[in-house]
């Protein structure tokens, strides 16, 4: 604690007093519930106000992981979550870096391109999803026309689960690549131009410059983007809701949790909300994020030490 200048005695309490509302809101709305998720995962809580909540031990976990068809579906969703994460992360990360480097060359019109690529980020899942539903309109929409030109056709979001799923990956990348690009751009701008000039004088090729100057010096943004992309895509599912809805063979874990906890459609009654089960599923997703996140973090830390040391 450092010297406090705004009075003694009672007046010394002012900072504590004014801090209370913000801290309380945070503890009650975010931190408390977040910690309580684990507790709820051992109960049979529903969505009915005042209904008794009983302790059921590991029942929810057993059901999620071991019970016949439901468990099969869950592992399907788990697999799709990992596939979604893998493709979104690798493509979005590489495209983001590539585009950031293009935009960082100081070419004319750069601001326009940067703004355009970043724009979808602020539009939100509803607008992103609806824009692409129209773009992928199967009855003579722009994408259908393009395929027609190549002599083929697709039902896009209404087609086979794998096709619909692939398009959600495309839209997810389209929607969020801007954030990855912006973070890489911020990283690129911290690299002093003298470094490039020195490398050029030494006669280094473009690829050598990228490998030996840009890539190592970009380490902080590489770490940030990789973690953000992995964690973000493991938890993302809003675009599934807007683009295809709750359809067998396409769900990811996040969407399953929501569907179990709050009903698949807005019309279902709150008695069918299986919130204890959904809480258990959230904990499983959380553990997945934690494991993949910490493995990535460990690898990144090792790499950083190797580069710096």
């Amino acid at each position: 604690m450092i010297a406090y200048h705004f009075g003694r005695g009672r007046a010394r309490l002012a900072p504590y007093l004014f801090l209370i509302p913000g801290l309380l809101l945070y503890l009650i709305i975010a931190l408390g519930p977040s910690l309580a998720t684990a507790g709820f995962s051992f109960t049979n809580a529903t969505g009915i106000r005042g209904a008794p909540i009983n302790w059921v031990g590991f029942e929810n976990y057993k059901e999620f992981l071991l019970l016949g068809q439901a468990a099969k579906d869950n592992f399907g969703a788990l697999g799709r979550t990992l596939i979604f994460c893998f493709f979104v992360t690798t493509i979005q990360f590489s495209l983001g870096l590539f585009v950031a480097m293009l935009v960082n060359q100081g070419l004319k019109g750069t601001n326009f391109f940067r703004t355009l690529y970043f724009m979808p980020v602020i539009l939100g899942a509803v607008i992103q999803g609806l824009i692409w539903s129209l773009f992928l309109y199967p009855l003579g929409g722009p994408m259908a026309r393009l395929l027609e030109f190549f002599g083929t056709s697709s039902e896009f979001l209404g087609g086979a689960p794998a096709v619909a799923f692939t398009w959600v990956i495309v839209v997810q990348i389209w929607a969020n690549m801007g954030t990855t690009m912006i973070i890489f751009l911020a990283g690129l701008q911290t690299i002093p131009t003298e470094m490039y000039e020195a490398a050029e004088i030494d006669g280094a090729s473009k690829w050598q410059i990228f490998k030996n100057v840009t890539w190592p010096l970009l380490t902080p943004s590489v770490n940030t983007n990789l973690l953000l992309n992995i964690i973000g895509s493991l938890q993302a599912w809003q675009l599934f809701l807007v683009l295809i809805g709750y359809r067998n063979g396409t769900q990811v874990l996040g969407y399953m949790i929501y569907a179990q906890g709050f009903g698949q459609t807005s019309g279902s009654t709150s008695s069918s909300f299986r919130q204890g089960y959904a809480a258990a599923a959230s904990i499983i997703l959380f553990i997945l994020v934690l494991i993949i996140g910490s493995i990535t973090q460990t690898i990144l830390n090792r790499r950083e030490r190797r580069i710096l040391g």
Partner: protein
Amino acid sequence: MKAAIKIHKPIKWGRVGSYAILILFAIIYASPLLILVNTSLKTLPDFMKNATSIASSFNFKNFIDAWTKANFPRYLTNSLIYTVSATLIFVVTAVFVAFPISRRYIKGANIILSLFVVALFLPPALIPQFQLMLALGLYNNPIGYILLFTINPIGMVILVNYIKTIPKELDEAAALDGCGYLKFMTSILFPLIRPAVATVAVLHAIGIWNELILPTIYLTNKDYYPITRGMIVFQGVYGSNWPTLAAAVLLMTLPMLLIFLLMQRYIISGLTQGAVKG
């Protein structure tokens, strides 16, 4: 004269190639939006006949239809109320938390700060939060809904870090002049940290405006729907009438686009800071 002939620089293929790729990406990014605008200007029969043809005339009827049939004014007003009030509550309460933490004017400042940081790594609060709101009778209640958006851990971290850049001597000087804590915060600190407040407020507001999951969970009364939820309902009813639906989407997009173009600097600085320090 010789020099004049030699003035042509050789074409740098690097530059031409760069522009080619930039333009290709621009097409991928802009065309879904342009298609949206084009569709919104067409009549339904036109769209059915040929979904991709260029709109032959400016047909604004779709916008009028969307505005009146989609209950748009209601949803927009709701979204505006939720966004503005929750952002205001968040920013004001957060600055009063961030300042004493940043200055270490309170005991346990570090512990409180880590409480905010740790939330980024914990399981989602969704289910217990719902149980809490249910128990408090705040389910399907606009006030309860607003309360859900009065916190933002990343925003808090950005504020704490920004306040560190304001010299501490300022506090001492103001206090010597007889300025109290509250007066200092409102009349000296707030104006000084305006860039950080703008950044945090804009990011937070965009998040609320775009939120789809929480209104789906917490609001069952149509009169309380924000624009996101309203759009999904509208899609359900007018799903096959793309011209009207496109007009509705465009009406919803315009305020966001405007805010984005005006506040781009703050949004980008917030995202990069939040990403690096969060």
